[in-house]
């Protein structure tokens, strides 16, 4: 069961977006940022520092794992480190999304979303 409990804590926006970006598959840093841009446009941007500090933190917490180093044929011949979601990361993401969904339902019930 992935529904958040009262002890669940919100993820930071950067961590949430990175988890979402990795939910579709393995990605390197630049691809993660491209995916986030695709999700949010210019509404949410993170810098390289925020991205890699979050990655370091998520690796330590077991939310993501390093995949193999390989070149991205769409970019250049440079080898890049890929990251992938772990089982724990996926559970955390689902719990967070369920929490946000519950919040949205409350907001809709109070007519705050304009489509209640």
């Amino acid at each position, binding site marked *: 069961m992935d529904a958040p409990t009262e002890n669940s804590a919100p993820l930071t926006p950067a961590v949430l977006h990175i988890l979402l970006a990795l939910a579709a598959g393995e990605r390197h840093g630049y691809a993660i940022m491209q995916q986030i841009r695709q999700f949010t446009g210019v509404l949410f941007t993170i810098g390289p520092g925020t991205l*890699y500090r979050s*990655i370091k933190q998520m690796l330590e917490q077991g939310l993501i794992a390093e995949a193999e180093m390989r070149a991205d044929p769409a970019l250049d011949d440079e080898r890049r480190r890929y990251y992938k979601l772990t089982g724990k990361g996926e*559970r955390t993401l689902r719990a967070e999304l369920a929490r946000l969904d519950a919040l949205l339902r409350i907001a809709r019930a109070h007519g705050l979303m304009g489509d209640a």
Partner: protein
Amino acid sequence: MRGQSPLARFCAAAYRVLLHLYPPRFRREYGAEMAQLFADLSRDADQRNGTTGVLALFVRAVFDTLQNSIGEWLTIMRKHWGKTLLTLTGLAALGGVWLFMFLWMIVYSSIFLVPWDATFTRPPEGTLAQLANDFFDGPGMSILSFVVLAVNATLFARAVRAGAETTTLPWKFAIAGVVFVAGSFALVTLGIQLGAFVWPFPVGRSDPGFHRSLFPGLMCLVSFVLYLKLLSRFARQGRLSHDNLTLDGAIPYKTTSENGR
């Protein structure tokens, strides 16, 4: 770096230099990837918005680097509180030097300057000695004392705040901070009173040393009150408990399965 403008290449090189603000271990682990990522982003910005885009990206990257490098250093300090303790002790020693300088000025002003003033002959007009005399005998002393006090209090407050966020001994540092500021105020007051007692001022002559010392003394009191307010705010936020501290001050991640166990 294919198809990059000279500006984009320059910004990428400058960003690699900026990466040295991060702790060495973090830089070794992620520096190359971050530099590569910035080069990719600057190429994109160049293609989309030209020079403006690259410059805007670089400015954002500077702030991003400053914010995250400080955060990463704090993370390391939190994990290695023994080294942090040494650092904070060094900071406290530095604060002590500032305190000494501050007290020296106050004592100099309130005790030694007054009897000297009584027989002091004003230097000739227009000389450097006369300018220096006017500065130290006028509001310059108060301003200088205040600046030293402000730097001193800020330095120590930051050290205490860093201690509260990065070590397992937050309360000891917090108490040390209160004692430090309160002690400063007490010593200043005591010094002024002692000076007036040992060297009474000539009849009919005002006490310039006391007036010069009054302003920094009051500032010391104000900083003490502000410091107490800071501690109170930290206590309300629960930031003085090490158990509540995690990266970036965020609450630790917990999955449902972990919570359930």
